[in-house]
């Protein structure tokens, strides 16, 4: 057992205070503008395609220097300016009172304040705007998506949410795993015996892994990413990697989307180019690789046209220009076929945990 309760115990509280003071600073700015008869404005880093660049040093997409001004002076921006001001106001309440919300909840909450979002995508966009303005992910605002992924393994956490302060829980206590929700996201990572984090794309296999005692056999914390990993999950993976120094490996379907799920965990998405701390640059993609399909003689299905197009698209991405990432795309394109993680069931239900996983973990050491 390793104990890694570093002096960071109060990092969550510190981040909260930092956010609150930033919000207040913005509030004061607006207040003074209004009082002096000036039109208040927000400076929002531009998220247009032209302003998203790949930073090789950071190994993720980041925003360039361009920014847009949303001003109350411009009639066509007045409404969205007010929405943004409202969101800052609402987030301030959430964070201060230690309450959590979801993307959908934000959309509905707005109605009580005469802030009319036309639909949820509009309110989701305003949330991203605030993320960019404050350079913080929405999880810091206590805003979470509806869909949640899970985590299981020997990891002790300490809650910081109101009413649970100081309470500790071990994440192997419940066989279904723990939802990566607001309270878990804000919890301090206290202690673990694990030596590895396995992120897996599918809930079904996550359960199988728990049943098969993968966490014990491989001394692993298992994370269900439920498809493309939500940001809170990516943030947790990063913290497991950086705070507890655990290596992260990824298992996804044997297709171009699986490969990209791994890539997003490793180096982020263009959608979140305005945010940091969501990437695990050292994460390793275990599989299923295109080359595994032939090597393990996996049952396959043919790719669709969209699959093929997606390959061509990714081939233009700077992150796919070298190594395993480049090679596997080429093989996928050659095969024009894909395999799911469940394909290993052909050789028995435990084949993936007994044979494939050990072999790939071994292989990954040389990556």
């Amino acid at each position, binding site marked *: 057992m390793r104990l890694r309760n570093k002096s960071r115990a109060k990092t969550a509280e510190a981040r909260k205070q930092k956010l609150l003071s930033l*919000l*207040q600073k*913005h*509030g*004061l700015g*607006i*207040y*003074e503008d*209004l*009082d002096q*008869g*000036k*039109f*208040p404005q927000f400076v929002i880093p531009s998220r247009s395609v032209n302003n998203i660049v790949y930073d090789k040093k950071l190994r993720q997409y980041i925003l360039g220097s361009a920014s847009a001004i949303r001003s*109350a*002076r*411009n*009639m*066509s921006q*007045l*409404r969205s*300016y*007010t929405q943004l*001001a*409202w969101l*800052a*106001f609402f987030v*301030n*309440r959430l964070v201060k009172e230690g309450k959590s919300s979801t993307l959908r909840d934000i959309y509905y909450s707005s109605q009580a*304040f*005469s*802030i009319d979002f036309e639909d949820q995508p509009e309110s989701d966009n305003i949330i991203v705007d605030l993320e960019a303005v404050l350079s913080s992910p929405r999880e810091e605002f206590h805003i979470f998506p509806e869909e949640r992924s899970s985590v299981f393994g020997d990891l002790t956490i300490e809650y910081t949410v109101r009413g649970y302060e100081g309470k500790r829980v071990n994440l192997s206590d419940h066989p279904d795993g723990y939802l990566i929700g607001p309270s878990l996201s804000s919890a301090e990572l206290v202690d673990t015996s694990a030596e590895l984090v396995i992120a897996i794309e599918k809930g079904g296999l996550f359960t199988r892994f728990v049943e098969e005692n993968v966490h014990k056999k491989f001394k692993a914390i298992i994370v269900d990413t439920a498809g493309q990993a939500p940001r809170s999950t990516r943030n947790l993976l990063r913290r497991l990697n950086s705070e507890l120094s655990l290596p992260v490996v990824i298992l996804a379907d044997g297709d171009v989307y699986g490969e990209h799920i791994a890539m997003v965990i490793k180096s982020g998405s263009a959608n979140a180019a305005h945010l940091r701390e969501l990437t695990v640059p050292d994460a390793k993609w275990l599989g299923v690789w295109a080359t595994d399909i032939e090597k393990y003689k996996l049952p396959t299905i043919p790719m669709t046209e969209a699959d093929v197009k997606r390959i061509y698209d990714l081939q233009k991405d700077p992150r796919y220009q070298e190594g395993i990432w480049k090679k596997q795309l080429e093989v996928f394109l050659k095969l024009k076929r894909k395999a799911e993680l469940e394909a290993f069931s052909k050789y028995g239900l435990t084949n993936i945990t007994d044979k494939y996983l050990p072999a790939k973990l071994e292989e990954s050491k040389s990556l």
Partner: protein
Amino acid sequence: MSSNKETFSQISPSEFFYRNRDLAGFSNPTRSLYTSVREFVENALDACDQKRILPDIHLSIKAVDSEQPDPKHYVLTVKDNGPGIDPKHIPLAFGTVLYGSKFGLKQARGMFGLGATMAILYGQITTNKPVTVKSCADEKTLDEFVMLLDIQKNKPVILKHTTKEAAKTGLSVSIVLEGDYSKAGTKIRDYVSQTSLITPYASITFEDPAGEKFHYPRIVKEMPPPPTVIKPHPHGVDVETLRRMIIDTHYQIPTVDNKMIEKVRKELGMQKKNPSPKDILDRAEKRWSDLSRSIRIVIAVMSFLNIDFEMLRKIRIDDVDIANKKVVYWDFGESQSHAVELDPESTYYKQLANTVQGETLLTFLTKRFQRVGPTTSEKFCEFAKLKPEKRIGSMTNDELVRLADALQKFDEFLAPDPSCLAPLGEEPLSKGVMKFFNPEFAAVIQRSASAYSGFPFIVEMGIAYGGDIPQTGLKVYRFANRIPLLYDEGSDVVLKVVNETDWSRYKVKGEPPLVIVSHICSTRIPYKTVGKENVADRPELERELKNALQYLARKLAVHMSRQGMADMAKKRANLYTKYVPLIAQFATELSGKKKEPNYKQLVRMGSEIEEQI
């Protein structure tokens, strides 16, 4: 319809029209009733226009037996305050077909005075009832004629003629005809109301078969200037017209008969004796400037033949051949033909040459066409590569074609003289449109005159938007020579131009409360059919309509964007009133202040500033 000074002439029998009455719009009881109304009302308005009398028109349609179902017999009466018609012309004017006063190159509503007689003819055919015409032309006596038409002979048969005292001029025509008012009623009411729109200086009253009165009072007291008869415009002349014009301009060698010789003697003052050729020429030289043109020609010929009056009596001049410089004559005494050389040095040579070959091209252009001066003529000759001194009578066929072609293509001619046209004018049109539609916005334009195939025309157009106009989409009111066009809308050139317009470019959307009034004035409207209801799409006409419409549409767009800006300002004010207090509320809590900031100033500023970015 007529006056004492106008000349009437009989040009064709009524039989033809009796057989072909469909052509003139008398195909069925519905159409016939409508056409009859039109013809009489238009004649009445034309008569008033010509004498510059502000028209006062009364139209009434009464069923002979209202109990009967349609189609049935109606009495149609149209009464005007025009100049009336000299009683001696009345039987012919209303009792024969194609007897009219409307010939010549100027604008009038009706053509050839054909329609009114057709209506009378139609009434007689369907009901066997006579026409009643009451007229006062001298402010003293009113003549009343009751007449039938003798169709075969194209002659009036007067059944009754009475006179009584009267104080005012005017004309009233009343016929009995088979009609269908239940079907024609809508069109007739439209016709009357639209006529009042395009004739705002007229007062029109219509009493329908149910006894309901529609009164359209006079909106303007001034009549538009009257049209005049004019010369053709060069752009509108083809080879055939040119040929005819040339024949009109150069003189024939006069026939030398006894009467002519008497005339020559008289003008020379040599009636008594028989002077020698030399005496004749000496006298002629003295009196040359007083001699008429034909006399000068006779004398010129006599000089070359060296003959006296006795001799002149015995010959016939057959040909003056300028090309070969010869005069050929027939001698009755000798019964043989002689040719005499022409001396080009002789002073009489030019006289003969001019006569036979007509005037020079330069003179022809300046004298025979409207608005062509010597400078333009010279430029044109250069353009057409024709010599200005060329005699038009000596032009070859090829040269004629080249001339006609160049006349079409030369673009430095002034626009046709519109004085033969009688557009309504922008002010009366504008007043008519305002009164008629009571719109929120209206604009009118009168384009400068243009020409198609030799006929000048002027396009006048008005546009009206909003106000009392219903939101039922664009409606087009078409007029030609102050006549409303109600039938065959689909194939009309005005509709074509309107429909080709992209209204969204002019900020007009959906089913706009929009009206377009189009008025084409021309000495000849290019109707597609004899029914005179739709105008053909001549390119020249289409272009003028398009320009007029674009001008008006742009004006409308300015109005619309002004309107839009006002709406926008209102929207702005609403937005800032709504959102600024909200922002203040959020900022107050965010900043941790107790009291809200003073944001009133910002609401006001937000409402006032112009649109940015």
